[in-house]
């Protein structure tokens, strides 16, 4: 033991062998975060190609590029892909997974195997939904799939079932992630990282995780009821048999409004990370921005009926939901003003990441203003189901998630992949995406006010919509070009980019204290924090992962301790847990090693959901039973102790 240093021992304990099969079994949050980024970005490209097909069809009036049925399928898949396979997983899955343990000074997430399960379930849910293309019946009733359009009568094929089971599968992935985030953030913070020192990124993640926990059950309920009706002849949404079609809208939007904030609140977290670093000053109004995330999360559960102003709700409900919707603008406005104040009082360095953050604020404000407009009942009656709403959702969701993602990519790629991106290509990509985005989506406001309904596959000329639609298509292609430049930059950086130093931006949060990319075990010693911006106030943290000179540490007075040794002796993976609010040292926690069980369990679920797609006959029941058996075996092994505990 004397010859092996603590760093070598930790490296051996935490490493995943480099071969392909071992890499499938890894539970390292950093590998999982990188996979999330690449997979969700791949789905973004697929959804983007679908968008371009839609824009080609709408380029001029009366075009015959896509027929009505194909158009329905493509716009449904565009919505489902962008919202559920890209916007939902990308920020929390990629940056959340990769950054949270590093930001809080932990060696991994609380439940590493569940983390791997989240990823595989997400990937397989995407595979399942795109399996619909192989059998030629993709979902075609739009991403919100209103009843009774989705009943067996109107969608006899499995199209809608792909939507249902795919999203239920994704719900498994997302819920498991949320639980993992909550427990990690509450229990695995390093000593001194009390709740009032959490970075704003973490605040946004925790608010999001709670929203997931309480909103996805509504989607689950809706899917269960819909599939019972479709497969087993239940009467829930069928008005002819006493059902209530509007119940679908209530259930879907009780989920669907929080999910809008599940998309953009993590994005605000990225922006709150990027802005202080490049404005080179502490965030102004930290406490207000943190509380804004939490209060938007709360409010998100009381605004769902603003999607339903035209269905004939009682006046009292209209007033309540309208007022609640307007209320969201208060915390959101506070957040925006805190960013602006920070920028105003800082000394800005106009890097690409920072430009994207500024673009984010721009699109967020425009989307927010059109949100307040549609929150007003009389105006909503006018623009409901027109392109005005399409413009609004693209500003408030597509713009925010995309620009926050790109800000995050330019900010964190050095940490995640160890290479610097090119500022020159980065700026070119920025101007193309920013110009393309606004050209593509801003005219939709106008054409919506002129009465163009959403989700139509073509339109007649002479309605005043032609030039706007042509502009939108041109904008979409410029946006696509910008994305190509970003991809080029990313690939050239991976191959030939300069190696990234530990902290290229002089950033404040803890992930920049370790090497780029970080070692498998993240931290040799567990840091002890005394500040909200640890790297700005505790410069000694920059050497946290260097082998310790014991004397040097011993000389430190107790109030000035940089790090606790953390568990380094064991040959099993260990990290430290602390108390929930004050982050005082609580326990040494043993972590599971790499495992094939998450992959096996996700595969079992894939078999179950695939078996549920067609009408349930003998063979299909057999498939479902096989899948359940696989899940059962995986769970049996999962919870069996690795070694018999010594009694």
């Amino acid at each position, binding site marked *: 033991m004397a010859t092996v240093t603590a760093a070598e021992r930790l490296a051996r304990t935490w490493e995943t062998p480099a071969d392909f099969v071992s890499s499938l079994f890894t539970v390292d949050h950093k590998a999982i975060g990188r996979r999330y980024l690449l997979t969700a970005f791949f789905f973004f490209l697929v959804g983007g190609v679908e968008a371009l097909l839609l824009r080609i069809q709408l380029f001029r009036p009366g075009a015959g590029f896509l027929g009505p049925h194909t158009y329905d399928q493509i716009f449904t898949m565009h919505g489902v892909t962008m919202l559920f396979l890209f916007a939902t997983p990308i920020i929390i899955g990629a940056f959340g997974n990769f950054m949270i343990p590093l930001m809080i000074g932990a060696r991994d997430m*609380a*439940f590493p195997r*569940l983390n791997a399960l989240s990823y595989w379930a997400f990937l397989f849910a995407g595979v399942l939904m795109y399996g619909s293309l192989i059998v030629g019946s993709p979902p075609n009733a739009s991403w919100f799939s209103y009843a009774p359009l989705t009943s067996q009568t109107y969608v006899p094929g499995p199209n809608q079932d792909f939507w249902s089971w795919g999203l239920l599968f994704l719900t498994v992935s997302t*819920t498991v992630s*949320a*639980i*993992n985030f*909550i*427990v990690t953030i*509450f*229990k*695995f913070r390093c000593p001194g990282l009390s709740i009032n020192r959490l970075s704003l990124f973490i605040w946004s993640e925790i608010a999001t995780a709670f929203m997931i*926990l*309480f909103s*996805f*059950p*509504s989607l689950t*309920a809706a899917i*269960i009821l819909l599939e*019972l009706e479709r497969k087993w*002849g*239940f*009467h*829930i949404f*069928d008005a002819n*048999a*006493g*059902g*209530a079609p509007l*119940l679908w809208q209530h*259930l879907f939007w*009780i989920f669907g409004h929080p999910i809008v904030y599940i998309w953009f609140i993590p994005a605000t977290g990225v922006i709150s990370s990027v802005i202080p670093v490049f404005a080179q000053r502490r965030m102004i109004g930290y406490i207000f921005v943190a509380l804004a995330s939490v209060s938007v999360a709360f409010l998100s559960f009381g605004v769902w009926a603003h999607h339903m102003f035209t269905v004939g709700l009682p006046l009292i409900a209209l007033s309540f939901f309208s007022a609640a919707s307007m209320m969201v603008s208060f915390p959101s406005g506070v957040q925006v003003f805190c960013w602006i104040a920070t920028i105003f009082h800082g000394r800005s360095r106009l890097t690409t990441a920072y430009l994207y953050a500024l673009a984010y604020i721009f699109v967020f404000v425009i989307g927010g203003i059109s949100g307040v407009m549609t929150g007003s009942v009389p105006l909503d009656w006018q623009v409901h189901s027109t392109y005005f709403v399409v413009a609004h959702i693209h500003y408030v969701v597509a713009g925010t998630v995309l620009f926050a993602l790109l800000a995050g990519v330019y900010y964190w790629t050095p940490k995640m992949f160890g290479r610097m991106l090119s500022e020159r290509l980065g700026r070119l990509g920025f101007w193309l995406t920013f110009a393309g985005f606004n050209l593509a989506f801003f005219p939709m406001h106008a054409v919506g006010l002129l009465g163009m309904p959403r989700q139509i596959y073509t339109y007649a000329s002479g309605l005043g919509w032609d030039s706007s639609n042509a502009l939108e298509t041109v904008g979409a292609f410029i946006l696509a070009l910008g994305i190509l430049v970003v991809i080029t930059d990313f690939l050239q950086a991976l191959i030939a980019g300069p190696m990234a130093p530990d902290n290229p931006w002089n950033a404040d949060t803890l992930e920049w204290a370790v090497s780029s990319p970080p070692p498998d075990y993240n931290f040799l010693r567990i840091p*002890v924090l005394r500040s909200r911006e640890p790297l700005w106030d505790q410069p000694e943290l920059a050497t946290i992962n260097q082998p*310790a000179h*014991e*004397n040097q*540490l*011993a000389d*430190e007075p*107790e109030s000035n*301790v940089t790090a*606790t*040794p*953390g*568990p380094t002796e*064991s040959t099993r993976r*260990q990290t*430290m*847990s602390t108390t*929930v609010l004050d982050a005082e*040292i609580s*326990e*040494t*926690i*043993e972590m599971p090693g790499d495992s094939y069980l998450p992959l096996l369990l996700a595969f079992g679920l894939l078999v179950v959901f695939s078996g549920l797609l067609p009408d349930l006959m003998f063979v299909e029941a057999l498939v479902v039973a096989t899948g359940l058996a696989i899940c059962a075996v995986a769970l*049996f092994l999962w*919870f*069996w*102790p690795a070694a*018999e505990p010594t009694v």
Partner: protein
Amino acid sequence: MTALDSGLTLPPARPVSGSRAPAWWGMLCLIATEATLFVLLIFSYFYLRWGSPNWPPQGTPRPEFTVIIPATVLLLGSSAPVMWAETAIRRGRQNVLRLGLSVAWLMAAVFVILELWEWSHLGFGPQSSQYASIFFTITGLHLAHVSIALLMSAYIQLRASRGHFDAQHFLAVENVALYWHFVDVVWIFVFATVYISPYVT
């Protein structure tokens, strides 16, 4: 080593339980999200009722209590032996753990049988009306949860028979007990909704 430990000492790895254990927090989160699912289905029940002129629809009798009351007593009562078993293992008494869990298991299993019997004697199937559909959905989902709790309990009984638990190692027992109580408490709300509320006009 002493030098490194200055001021902040880390206890050695040891078995944890309750709020010290990450898995305990995980179970609470799972229960929170599952409870929300039941809340939304109960919301759906009342939404459907609100839109219907008669509840239950004409020709459908109101639910009977003869079978479900004893079943309810058994299910809610099964929480007691689970608590008893959990308290016992905290003191290292493995025999009481096994006994308590198996008594509770039998009680809940009889609940499942009684409920299935009740289903087959209702006089209507889930396709009969919107009332029947939501009745079967909610009771069925609860039945699925009881079955999962039964499987979980069977699993830790197997582990208990291998001597996996003692006065320090009982986190899995604690978590299964939490889930078990959750399934029981949910039944109170399900029962009030699908059995009692039709009598309130």
